[in-house]
Structure formats: C-alpha cells, structure tokens
C-alpha cells in the first residue's frame, strides 16, 4: 500500500535525475549517464514493487458493498463525487440537494446502454447506484465479484473562484492502468538509457542528452499518474517539449531542427483540441478537473450525451496529433531525425502512447459520448482504422529503415485507437504493452544496424547481408518482426487477435458493437504489416552487402537490451491468455491476468463487454499474416511474380499509386504547399493589401483628421485664446512696471520721504479709525 500511495516518488526521482545531470553531469566520470541509469533503474524497481503492491491490493477482499467501499482509498478532497458517496455511506443524511440535482439531466439512464436501466431510472438524485446494483446482482448470481479500488492521493494546487468552490488538485491516481504504464515506461526507458550510453557515446551533447532523456521519462510518468486533467495537460505538454528537444538533438543540421519544429507545431494543433475538451469537461462535471469525477459522471449519465460527444471529438484531435493518427500524423516520420534510442522511446513508451493513454484514462467520456456500445461506426474507430490501413501502405515505399518503423508505429497506433473506438479497451492497452516491447526492439535493432552501416539508415543502398555480421541484432529483429506481424504464439498475435475479436459479430461472439468495416480495414493493415516487415528484413539482412567498409556487431550495451526486449516481446502475450480456445480451457490462475490487473470495474468505468477468443478469426488473421510473409518471401528471395517487378514504370495506374505513396498521400504537400503556401502567398498578399489599403487608410485618415484638428486648435485656441491670455498678462505687467519705474529714483531720501508720508497717513487713519 505504501508504494501505491507514494507513487509520486517515481516521476520525482526522474525529475531529480534531470536536475542532477544538468548541474553535475559534466563533472561525473561518465558524463552524467550513470546518474540517469541509476535513477531509471531505481524507478524501474519501484515501478515493479508498485505493480506487486497493486496486484495484492487488487485481489484483496473488499469490505462492505457498493461504490463507497470501492472508493475507500480515495483521499478526501480529491474527488467531489467520491466525497459525496462517502458522506451518503456514513448515513449522514445531509444530501446537499441542489448541488447535484441541479446538474443532473432528468433523463438519467437514457444514454446508458447497459443492463441496469431500471436502477438508474430510480436514482434521480446524485446516488450512483447503478454499477453497485450491477455488481451486487452479479455477486448474487454466484460469480466472483471484483471491484477496482483506485488509490488516489492529492494536494491542493490552486483555488479558483470563491474559496472552496473549485479546487485544482494535483496528485496521483494509481490503478491498474497507471501501474501498467509505470512499468512499461520505466522498463523501456531503462533499456534505452543503457543502449544510449553506447549508442551516443562521444556525442558533443552527451550530458545534455541524458538530462533530457530523464526529463522525458519524468514527464511521461507524471502524465500517467495524473489525478486531474490539468495535471494531464501539464504532463502532455512536457512530453511534447522533451520530444522537441530530443528530436532536434543534432540541431546543427537544418532538417533535424525542422523536424523538431514540425513535431512541436503539429502537436500544438492537436493540443487546442485537448484544451477545449478539458475545458468542456470541467464545466460539464460541475467545475471539477478530477479524472475520477469526470469518469464517474460520464459513466453514469451525469453529463449529457451531446456534451460528451463534443468533448470526445475535441479530445480525438489531440490524439490525432500526439499519437500520429491521420490527418496529423505527418510529424512522426520526420521525427526520425532524432537519435535512434529517442525514436524507440518516443514510439514505444513515452510520446505517442500518451494519446492512447489519455483516451483510455477518460474512457467513459468516449464510450458514452461516441455511443461505442451497440453502434457500428464512430469517429474514433474510423480515425484508427484509416490510420492502421493507410499507414501500413506507406511503409512499403520507404527506403529508410527507421521510416518503415515509423509508419509501422502509426499503423499499430491506429490498431490501438480502433480498439478503443470499438470498445475493446483491454485489447488496446494490451496491444500498447506488447507493442512497446517489440517496437522498442525493432528501433533499437535499426540503430544497431545503422551503427554497423556507418550511421546510415538507408536499407536499400547501405545495408544488406547483415544477417551474418550482426547475428544478435538479426535474431532479435526477426523475433520482434514476427511478434509485430502477429505470428503465433508471440505476443503480437494475442494482442492483435484480441483487438480484431473486439470488433464484434462477424466471426466472433461478444464485443460492443458490429464494426465490420473497421475489422476489414484492420485485416488489410495486418496483411500489409507482415509484408512490409518481411521486405525490410530482406533489404537489411539478406542479399549482398551494398554499403561500404566492414560492418561489425554492436557492443554488449546495445545487444543486451535488444535480447531482453525481444524475449519480453516474444513472451508477454501469455499475460492475457483467453479463458478458453475451442476445446482447451486455461485455468483461471493464468488466463486473463492482464485484464484482471488493468481493467477497472466499478463506478468510474463503463461496463464493457469482452469478446471471446474466436478460432476462425484467429486462424484467418494468422493465415493472412503468414501468406503475406510467404508472398513477400517469394517475391524477394525467389524472384517470383516477375511481372510485378518494374510494374510501376510500365503501368500507369500502378505508377500513379506508387507516386501517391512516395508522396505520402500528399499530406506534407497539402500542409506546406497548399496551406502554408496559401498563407504565405495569396493570404499574405490579401492581408497585406487589406493592411495597406484599409487599415492603413483608416489609420492615415485618423492621422490626417488629427492633423487638421490640431492645426485648427493651434491657430485658433492656442494662438488666440491661450497665448492671448499669457501675452496679455505679460503686457499688463510690463506696462504697470513702466509706470511704476518712475517712482524708483534711487534717491534714498525720496524713499524716506515717501515712507514717512505713508506712515503719517496710516497713523492719521489709525487715529481717526480708533479715536
């Protein structure tokens, strides 16, 4: 429990590491990298202990019933809704009526699709009896009842409005989801730190690099532990800034600094969506930033459907930019300009998964807002599916191995977003988890390859035949590729299959809706994934070596992280084995462990239905992946399908398709030439004309009017009235002086005579007046 309430230590440790490296790094024997590795190592151990602690906490018997008991670990003051529940639970009949009843729409329950409409219909006050009712109902049916009890700690940050009315808090919200991310982020970061100490050794900004790597991890950890949406925004932006710094690590070269700027600015576009979404939710939830409040209200109909829809669409724009979804994905391939370990960190653990995590964290908002349950199409699922399919197609025409992986990440993030969009929440997080392992392996492997190929990433021109010289890199790359392609029994197979099964009734039972279109798009994406990864292996590891010099295997600080990550990437799939596969039944102690660990059950999470493992679908997707591998193998290794070679030169349609892909669907052209070009060209000229003629005309006219008015005032008022008065006074004084100067003869006796005369006169007056 101590680890759950003190989770803040983990990001704080990494932030401290950032400061220490920045201030003392250069004086250390290893230039600061040892501080970073030690800090992330400790953070990783703490994260594992936290995970263990959560596992125990999550499996403990719950005392009492209902939501109040489930929320017993929430510190008072962190969530209005939970405080409300606790007050009701203690029998204090002080329902602050009007506080909640005023906000509640009268049609509570209408927007809820679940099984408990009757319960919600009755609860017309702020009691959220519905999930409690559901869970007790389930319990009475004899099934194992399980309610997730998030551990929330917070501190006041700022107060807005009148005292006590609205408190901005920051703190930690620890539940399975955030604990999972703690482990993933610290694990990948640890591997990346160790890898970097060899990969960027001798770099001119080695210390600086490690400092920002620490800050990057700290920001992401801060983000995943966020207790309020404001804190989430802070973490979100910190992650963005760190990615800007690290992508532009070698900023002396113009393309690198351009890529960093592009990443940052593209993210700014999406951030506007995040800000608006959070603001909408803040007001909708009765002025609360607490994530728990938002989730409880959204999951139980406390916020109207329309508001949730608008808020979730705004937040989806944030996801588009952060997680590289169409149409704001263009920064991600360019972000390859950064050092390779940074790419691994960005793609596997920190930057891009922030978007996925945000959706997963505020899932009730999306689930209710987009009516995910029982629907067959929604914005989130479309964005994800389009990204998954079109991103995978783009990977085919890349020569740069890191760009292949970048488009692969875009495509895989599309899988996760689609999974969230179709209600397969656990599948999305499971895929995030497995993807982090094998994508980190792939990126680090690409870095190892480029180390051997004289720091080139061009697999078509500078690689080939690396299989023999880089055996460890080769084997880890093969394992990670197989996992990414979804080959049984590697981790990618389990997570991808869970996503596909979550789409609903086409092959499988269960699921929240019938998302058949998305399922087909994802299957195409999965097929392409297997094919382009096979192509990558052909170019990088087979054939003749096309570069120059003699390539060599990388050192142990590069290969050991590769081996660890590849092993994990291969085996972590067993963490979420389905309960039964056809005739086989797995015991409860090993099946669905991941789901049990991560997925919240209770008032702050919607009741989602889980798809069961489906053999036809699994076999179909596996066959699809294997056939993709086989076809690519025949094409490259055996030279089959001769007619396809050079097709794009001969056939106009194929050529057109290739041109579109090479130009990345013209998105960059759209942004830089059309939009920016329009802003720089016609829009700028029009604005300039408007400025020159209209605005300047107004300004000039005003100025001319002022000049005329000034001239009039000068000539008439200033010259005649004011100066007249002044001059008149002067002239009067002067003339009076001229008259009086004759008295000033300079003869003292005359003065004396006058003085005496005056004195005598006064005396006379005196005498007369008094006497």
């Amino acid at each position, binding site marked *: 429990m101590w680890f759950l309430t003190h989770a803040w230590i983990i990001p704080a440790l990494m932030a401290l590491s950032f400061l220490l490296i920045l201030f003392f790094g250069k004086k250390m024997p290893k230039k600061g990298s040892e501080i970073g590795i030690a800090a992330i190592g400790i953070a990783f151990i703490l994260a594992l202990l936290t995970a263990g602690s959560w596992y125990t906490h999550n499996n403990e018997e719950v005392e009492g019933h209902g939501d109040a008991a489930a929320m017993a670990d929430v510190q008072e003051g962190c969530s209005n809704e939970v405080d409300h529940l606790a007050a009701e639970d203690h029998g204090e009949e002080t329902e602050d009526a009007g506080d909640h009843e005023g906000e509640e729409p009268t049609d509570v329950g209408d927007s809820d699709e679940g099984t408990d409409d009757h319960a919600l219909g009755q609860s017309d006050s702020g009691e959220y009896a519905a999930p409690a009712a559901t869970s007790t109902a389930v319990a009475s049916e004899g099934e194992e009842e399980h309610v997730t009890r998030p551990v929330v700690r917070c501190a006041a940050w700022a107060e807005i409005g009148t005292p006590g009315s609205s408190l901005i808090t920051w703190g930690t919200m620890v539940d399975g989801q955030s604990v999972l991310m703690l482990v993933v982020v610290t694990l990948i970061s640890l591997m990346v730190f160790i890898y970097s100490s060899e990969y960027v050794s001798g770099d001119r900004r080695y210390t600086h690099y490690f400092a920002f790597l620490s800050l990057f991890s700290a920001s992401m950890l801060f983000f995943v532990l966020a207790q309020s949406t404001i804190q989430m925004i802070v973490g979100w932006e910190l992650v963005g800034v760190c990615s800007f710094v690290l992508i532009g690590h070698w900023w002396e070269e113009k393309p690198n600094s351009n890529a960093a700027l592009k990443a940052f600015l593209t993210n700014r576009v999406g951030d506007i969506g995040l800000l608006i979404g959070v603001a909408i939710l803040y007001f909708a939830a009765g002025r609360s930033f607490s994530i728990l409040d938002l989730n409880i209200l959204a999951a139980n109909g406390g916020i109207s459907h329309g508001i949730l829809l608008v808020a979730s669409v705004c937040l989806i724009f944030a996801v588009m930019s952060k997680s590289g979804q169409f149409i704001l994905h263009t920064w991600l391939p360019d972000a390859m300009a950064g050092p390779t370990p940074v790419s691994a960190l960005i793609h596997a653990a920190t930057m891009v998964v922030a978007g996925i995590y945000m959706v997963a964290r505020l899932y009730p908002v999306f689930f209710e807002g987009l009516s995910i349950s029982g629907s067959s199409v929604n914005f989130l699922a479309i964005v994800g599916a389009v990204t998954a399919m079109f991103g995978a197609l783009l990977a085919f025409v890349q020569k740069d191995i890191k760009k292949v992986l970048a488009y692969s990440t875009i495509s895989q993030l599309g899988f996760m977003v689609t999974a969230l969009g179709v209600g397969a929440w656990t599948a999305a997080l499971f895929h995030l988890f497995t993807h982090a392992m094998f994508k980190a392996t792939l990126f680090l492997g690409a870095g190892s390859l480029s180390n051997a190929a004289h720091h080139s990433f061009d697999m078509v021109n500078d690689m080939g035949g690396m299989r023999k010289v880089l055996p460890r890199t080769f084997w880890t790359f093969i394992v990670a590729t197989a996992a990414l392609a979804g080959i049984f029994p590697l981790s990618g197979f389990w997570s991808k299959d869970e996503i596909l099964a979550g789409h609903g009734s086409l092959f499988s039972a269960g699921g929240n809706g019938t998302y058949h279109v998305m399922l087909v798009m994802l299957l195409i994406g999965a097929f392409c994934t297997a094919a382009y990864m096979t192509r990558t292996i052909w170019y990088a590891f087979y054939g003749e070596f096309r570069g120059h010099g003699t390539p060599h295997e990388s050192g142990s600080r590069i290969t050991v992280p590769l081996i660890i990550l590849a092993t994990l990437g291969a085996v972590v799939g067993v963490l979420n084995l389905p309960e039964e596969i056809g005739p086989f039944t797995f015991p409860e102690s090993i099946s669905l462990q991941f789901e049990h660990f991560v997925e919240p059950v209770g008032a702050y999470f919607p009741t989602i239905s889980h798809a069961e493992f489906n053999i036809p679908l699994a076999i179909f997707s596996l066959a699809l992946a294997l056939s993709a591998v086989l076809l690519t193998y025949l094409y490259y290794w055996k030279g089959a399908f001769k007619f396809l070679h050079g097709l794009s030169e001969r056939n106009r349609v194929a050529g057109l398709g290739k041109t579109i892909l090479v130009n990345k669907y013209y998105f960059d052209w759209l942004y830089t030439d059309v939009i920016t070009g329009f802003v720089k060209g016609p829009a700028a000229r029009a604005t300039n004309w408007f400025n020159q003629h209209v605005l300047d005309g107004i300004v000039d006219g005003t100025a001319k009017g002022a000049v005329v008015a000034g001239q009039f005032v000068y000539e008439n008022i200033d010259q005649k009235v004011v100066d007249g008065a002044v001059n008149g006074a002067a002239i009067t004084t002067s003339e009076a002086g001229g008259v009086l100067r004759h008295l*000033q003869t300079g003869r003292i006796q005359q003065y004396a005579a006058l003085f005496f005369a005056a004195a005598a006169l006064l005396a006379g007056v005196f005498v007369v007046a008094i006497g």
Partner: protein
Amino acid sequence: MLLTQFLLLAAILFSIGVYGVIVRKNGVLVLMSVELMLNAVNINLIAFSTYHGLGGQVFALFVIAVAAAEVGVGLAIVLLIYRNRRSVDIDQLDELKG
C-alpha cells in the same frame, strides 16, 4: 500736563529728525538725524514709563544700545562711501534707480 510737554518735545525732536533725514545731503548729518528720531522715541518711552511701569525704561535702554550699533554700521557705510567717491553727498547715490 507734564506728559503732554514731554510728548510735544518728542514730537518736535522727531520732526526735526525726519526733516534732517529727508533734506540733508551729508550722510553723517542724516545719521545724526536718525539719532534724533530715536531719541525722540526714547523720550516718549520714558515719559510713559512714569505712568505705566518700568517697561518703557527698559525699552529705552534697548533702543540706546541698538542705536549705538546702528550708528556703528552707518558710519562704516558712510566711511566706505567716502573712500569710494571722495564725497558723502547722498544725492549722488542713486544706483537703486529702477
């Protein structure tokens, strides 16, 4: 009655003093006339003191002391004027003319 005579004497002395101050050209004589006026005042003070206590006599003593100082300063001025101009004719001293 005796008081009236004293006051009359003082008035005559004062008038002579005023006349002297206004008319005489010699700076020394102007100073002497000023002394006459002061002494006229002294006579007044002493004459009234007979009826109103000794305050008047004290004032008279003050006036004599101040007059001595005044004459000292005045004579020094006259001496300097003489040194500069070889004359003490105050009609020529019209530098205060406006």
